[in-house]
């Protein structure tokens, strides 16, 4: 059982005791009458061939309170798209599949690009963004929930707890991030444990108290891919198209809303999904690529908020981070020992060394190009530039799903 301590500047909704799923779902069914809920699932076709997606579909067949499910399918041929339609047809809620590689959606992307509104390369960010656009175009939902499609330990409790804070008319939240413990027989979630938290705290040491760093440090699992939000937020938030997606999205939430309207919720006792290789020698793939993108996103967000970065500051940051990460590592080692978890200290230390290199690479990239890759524009801007874009998107998805 979790403790009830409130940390940071956002609200934490813990799992206290054994809350009944039936009660949650029954309340959600009531809320959904006035605040209909859309579930967005960014998925690759390969996830339908593994154990995760069949399990998720099986659980979703039991969910009654959803208004619509929008599956953004990537890397799928026409034949695979049709197969996925068959698999998803067992879900009782209305399901629409955004076929990212399809002719019509490709033309929507082409229309955006020629108007200077680049949706970025293929990936979760672009898929999620287009799905929000489709939900907005339909105008039938007030709440959007999103979770990854590689969760092996998925249960519908996760979805119910994720939707509840935003769907409830008495809780005044616009954004809710999920959190969970990434523990099996060992501690996972290396990027959060050994990169993000020590980096944020090192930056706080160097720059002093900063709103965004305090905000970011308030999240128990800032890189969790599970969140829910109001459709109003989906309309005004911009999204990064790289691995900086989670941190960049939080930066946009911080920019547009008060922390009082943001919360995090405990959505699962255990959470297991596919793991990335560290790839310490190659910064173009694996966790290293993720680490570099996340660092760049944090540096750019801080710079846009007036923090001045220089080479000397980055040199200090590397040393400060290393000390912070080593201290953190010791804390986790103790935590692992008391809980009888496997803890490979050497591997963890190697990860810290790799992340130190990632910070240096991100710093170099930032100094060379402080602007970086622009975020995917928000839907308000897109609809101002192309007035018929929502009709176009709705038509493309609806025709693909006929």
């Amino acid at each position, binding site marked *: 059982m979790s403790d009830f301590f409130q940390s940071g500047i956002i609200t934490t909704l813990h799992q206290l005791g054994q809350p009944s799923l039936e009660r949650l779902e029954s309340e959600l069914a009531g809320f959904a009458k006035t605040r209909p809920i859309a579930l967005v699932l960014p998925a690759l076709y390969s996830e339908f061939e593994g154990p995760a997606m069949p399990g998720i579909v099986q659980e979703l067949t039991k969910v009654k309170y959803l208004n619509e499910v929008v599956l953004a399918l990537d890397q799928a041929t026409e034949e695979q798209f049709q197969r996925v339609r068959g698999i998803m047809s067992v879900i009782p809620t209305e399901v629409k599949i955004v076929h990212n590689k399809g*002719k*019509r959606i490709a*033309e929507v992307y*082409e*229309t955006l690009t*020629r*108007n200077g509104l680049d949706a970025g390369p293929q990936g979760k960010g672009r898929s999620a963004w287009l799905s929000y656009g489709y939900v907005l175009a339909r105008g039938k939902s007030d709440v959007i929930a999103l979770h990854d499609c590689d969760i092996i330990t998925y249960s519908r409790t996760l979805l119910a707890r994720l939707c509840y804070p935003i769907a409830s008319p008495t809780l005044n939240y616009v954004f809710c991030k999920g959190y969970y413990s990434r523990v099996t027989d060992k501690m996972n979630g290396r990027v959060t444990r050994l990169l993000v938290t020590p980096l944020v705290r090192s930056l706080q040491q160097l720059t002093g108290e900063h709103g965004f760093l305090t905000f970011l440090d308030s999240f128990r699992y800032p890189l969790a891919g599970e969140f829910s939000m109001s459709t109003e937020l989906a309309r005004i938030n911009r999204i990064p198209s790289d691995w900086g997606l989670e941190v960049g999205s939080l930066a946009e939430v911080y920019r547009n809303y008060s922390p009082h309207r943001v919360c995090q919720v405990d959505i699962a006792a255990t959470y297991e999904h596919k793991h990335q290789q560290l790839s310490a020698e190659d910064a173009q793939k694996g966790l290293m690529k993720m680490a570099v993108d996340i660092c760049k996103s944090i540096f750019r967000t801080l710079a846009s908020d007036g923090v001045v970065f220089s080479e000397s500051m980055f040199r200090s940051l590397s040393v400060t981070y290393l000390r912070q990460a080593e201290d953190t590592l010791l804390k986790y080692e103790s935590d692992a020992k008391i809980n009888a978890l496997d803890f490979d200290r050497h591997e963890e230390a190697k990860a810290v060394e790799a992340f130190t290199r990632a910070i240096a690479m991100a710093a170099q990239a930032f100094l060379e190009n402080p602007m970086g890759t622009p975020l995917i524009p928000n839907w308000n801007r897109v609809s101002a*530039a*192309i*007035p*018929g*874009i929502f*009709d*176009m998107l709705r*038509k*493309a998805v609806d*025709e693909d799903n006929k």
Partner: protein
Amino acid sequence: MTDFLNLILEPLQEVFLKFQDFLPNLLAMLVILLLGILLAKLLRFILVKFLHAIEFDNWSDRMGFTALMRKGDLWVKPSAVIGGVVFWILVIVTLMAGLGALNVAAIDTLVAQFFNYLPRVFSAAIILAVGYLFTSFISRAVLIAVANGGYHYARLLAEAMRVLLMLMILAMVMEQLQIATGIVLAAFSILFGGIVIALAIAFGVGGIDTARRIVEQQFAEEEAPKPPDDIEHL
């Protein structure tokens, strides 16, 4: 035996001679067709390049032409559509010119009818394009004016205006193309007239009290005696 052979060979010879006469015409048609298709392809290429250069696709996106195409489940670039339309018009014109080269009386009549009909097709296309722009402009103006007036049914009214104007423009296009002119005119008159009468009745009946109040107020103001002038003039 020779007579019998002649009986068979003479018609064949006649057919051969006729074919010999017809062959240059056929070759001329094929050459016209080939050159026409090549020319059409070249013109399409140049036109599409030109449309790209003037950013026609972006303009279409902003003006709503692209959205209109997508509504019709047409998922190519607007410039490619224009290029395709021009290409096929040129191919059809070439085909007609080629058929004319055959010198067959029946085909000549058909070709003449086709060329006589072409101006109507062009004017119908212009009416449709200008009409669509005009409709979008009016609909947008209504939306802005009514929304600024604080009425919550602004979008509904703007859409209604768009549908009505598009109906009128489509009727004009059909009339121009001379497709079932009588039926189109009658259908349009009945539909448009019906809508206008319905609106007139709705506003008329709904506004009786308001109209009475305005008229009564007007008369009351005219009949009311003027108050005495209390101001002392110097």
